[in-house]
């Protein structure tokens, strides 16, 4: 996934689409951010200047689907795994015992704990998406790049006589990328040269969050604004822009 921060208006459509796709029950007090479930969360960044010099940028943060995830080795019950299933870090809800070690390990705060059972207003359960089961109280959950869509895209490729392991660019698209009205979120296989994101991820303005940690996040950000790139910690390794941009 490559997110162009210079195109994100912070409208929140991605957050809503994510909540709808993944059957996250609405919370009465959503201002209590310690209890909310935001698989996709749009942060507001500021350059801390004032007047005509002031700038803000909005940073959508899904799970980074790290190549070397911090959350996986700490899970005592193997409820979260990194495998070749699209490089997605899985989360097996029935296996999760709710110890939250993974939440403590994730530096991106991309994991959330269900403090309550999912309670939908009466009747709203009829509008549940068929993609994702509702999770009970006591388990951890997170963005999985709309994994059901990945499986559906592979099924379609099989039906159409194509190659399910080499999906065409655009054949698989998470809900957030699909709905974004400014097209700020590009999605594809970052290892596939035929996919648009392959080049975008290597662009001179591309960076990843907290690269110095070596987790190899699979979400790339793009911004022409230097102060935005600096906030992403791209400079940490060498002190120079453009450092640490290897695919793996």
């Amino acid at each position, binding site marked *: 996934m*490559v997110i*162009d921060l*210079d*195109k994100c*208006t*912070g*409208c*929140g*459509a991605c957050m*809503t*689409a994510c*909540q*709808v*796709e993944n*059957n*996250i029950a*609405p919370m*009465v*007090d*959503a*201002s*209590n951010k310690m209890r*909310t479930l*935001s698989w996709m*969360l*749009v942060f*507001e960044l*500021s350059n801390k200047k*004032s*007047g*005509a010099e*002031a*700038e*803000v*940028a909005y940073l959508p943060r899904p799970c980074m689907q790290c190549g070397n995830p911090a959350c996986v080795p700490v899970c005592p019950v193997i409820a979260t795994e990194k495998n070749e299933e699209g490089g997605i870090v899985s989360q097996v*809800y*029935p296996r999760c015992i709710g110890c939250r070690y993974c939440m403590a390990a994730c530096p991106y705060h991309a994991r959330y704990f269900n403090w309550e*059972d*999912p309670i939908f*207003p*009466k009747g*709203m*359960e*009829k*509008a549940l*998406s068929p993609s994702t*089961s*509702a*999770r009970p109280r*006591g388990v951890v959950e997170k963005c999985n790049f709309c994994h059901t869509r990945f499986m559906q895209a592979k099924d379609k490729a099989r039906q159409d006589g194509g190659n399910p392991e080499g999906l065409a660019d655009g054949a698989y698209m998470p809900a957030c990328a*699909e*709905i974004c*009205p*400014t*097209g*700020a979120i*590009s999605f594809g296989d970052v290892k596939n040269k035929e996919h648009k994101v392959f*080049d*975008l991820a290597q662009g001179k303005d591309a960076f990843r969050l907290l690269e110095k940690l070596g987790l190899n996040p699979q979400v790339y950000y*793009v911004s022409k604004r230097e102060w935005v790139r600096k906030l992403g910690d791209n400079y940490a390794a060498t002190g120079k822009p453009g450092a640490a941009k290897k695919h793996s």
Partner: protein
Amino acid sequence: MGLDRRGFVKIVVGGVAGTLFTPVIWQSLDDVSIWSQNWPWIPRLNKGEVKAKAALSKLCPAGCAVKVKTVGGLPFAVVGNTANPMSKGGVCPVCAAGAQLMYSPARVKSPLKKVGEGKFEAIKWEDAEALLVEKLTALKGQNGKIAAINGDETGSAGEVISGLLAGLGNSGYYMMPGEKFVAEKGVKLMGGSGQPGFDIAGADLVLMIGADALDSWGTTVANQKAFAATRPTGAAATAKFVYAGPVLNHSAAVSDKFLPVPPQATAAFALGLANLLINAGAVSSASDFAEYKALAAKYTVEEVEKATGLKAESMKALVDLIKAAKSPVVIAGASFGQGAGALDFVAGASLNVLLGRVGSGMTLLPAAPKAVAGATSSDKDAASFLAEVATGKAAPGALIVYEANPAYALPQADDMAKTLGNIAFKVSFSTYMDETAALCDLILPAPHPYERFDDALNPYGVAKPTYLAGKPVVKKPVQDCKDPVDVLLGAASKLGLSLGFDTYADVIQAKAKALGADFDALAAGGIWTGEAKGGSLNLGASALAKVAVAKTDDKTLAVAPVSNQANGSATLATPPANLLTVRETELSGKDLIVQMNAATAKKAGVAEGNKVKLSAGKGELKARVHLNEGVAPGTVAVLLGFGRSAWDEFTKGKGDNVYKILTVSDEAGTGLKVWAGSTVTVAKV
């Protein structure tokens, strides 16, 4: 034989080994972990074929052309319609939550009759319709006794409502305030006629003055798509965007430049820019150019700095950008889509005239044919009408409210609600139990957009005549509701009037035919577009001579209401699925958070986190302070959409309503009521 030590160890070891090798224990553990999460109260998913049906989602003011995904016939998600040129696959955050809103706890479930203060009883549709007809019959033929407020700017429903009123001998048809109404007045002041449009897609420089075009002004998703087309990720941008307004909002966040301009000084800013452009050689063949030039000359960089706080360099840099552009367009409006004066519009639009962009960047749309023969247009907005009711100049005995929430979304909202409450009979056609419905004597539930026929003609901002139409996605509405237009057409028939149609679907089909559009193609997700009309405009110099910059001092601050589309609109409280998008810097528990820059806070004697009271007129608003350097000097930014007193547990009682502290004033020379430059006093509590 006894059990010796060796035998005991064998049994234990054998037992442990056997336990490890048998699948029973592991299977049991697995089952326990699954079944301990498999409680009957955890909702199950719906099964069935997944389909996507085209729909016109009029949950946001402009309306999104979307596809509604259904499973087994039940809507569950909304995706963009890539085939529709307006939305091009994009969806706004409100329409993204559209399927869930069908089951909102705030929906009106059946016709309701008021039986006491805040108490309603469910009644049958026959009884509800009979009551409506009875009240209208009693007042038929008495001009001024029946009025209607319409909150739907684009639908043909307005034709039916105004046609019905005209048939009943009444002329009291009023629209809720919006940009379109003011802009058309502005065009008249510039010697033209018609609804103005703006070609963002064809511009290489878009200057937004006040208008939050990339979040809540005009056809938001189309604007965002036009913006996105100029910004291919990883490549050079092909157009510049500049936002000049009171708050570093969503449009400003992605613009190349943000210029903080207090809400009361946008006209002065535009005229200051005109002065610099004329000094740089800009000329116009408009008949009033000499007058305009002399007027603009008064807005020197020093004067503009005094009014806005902007330094000369910022203004000059903007002039350089405009000069370098081949196809610039200027869009002027209020930062929250209403309350600006016609002069604010004229000041911005005059720049398009000066730059020779009328007919290309800024267009004029021709009058559209009407489907309902007796339909009229509104010459006054609902705020002006209710001000007359409050002073006794107007005395309606019955009020029809269609898709509008005047009790919440008009300046000095508490007074407006009180005035509304004093009207003898009020009927609200509303999908949700909003603040206005809660005041009404009769509530007639309207279907959700995915349960009804509806249309949208020329949503404000489009550069060409544009028409969209939709039909129901589901076979049966979730609640016991009827299409309001069908109800009104039925009432008209019982009152002995013929508006020429039996149902709203017939009206829309006739409208499509009158425009030369194919209804079936529109309902399948298509679009009809026509051509903008020709014609020129003058610079509006004589009207602009009356521009006045309201003064603020250390004790009063200008209010800049901020509209984030995700938080809903006047007619829609924040959808439950959108509550997550509300930031910690906007709402904390039940406290609304208002924003101002550090210098302004210091002058007002408040600091980060302080509880404050903002007062203006009879209205008061309580909030906490958050410091934000993206707010113009002398300005307090307040987010719209909170302080609901009706709706549901997700929104009721959260934050406070900024409309309570907006004050109305008369715009010099135009007679319009304006409230975009309202000021408030701030006190720590």
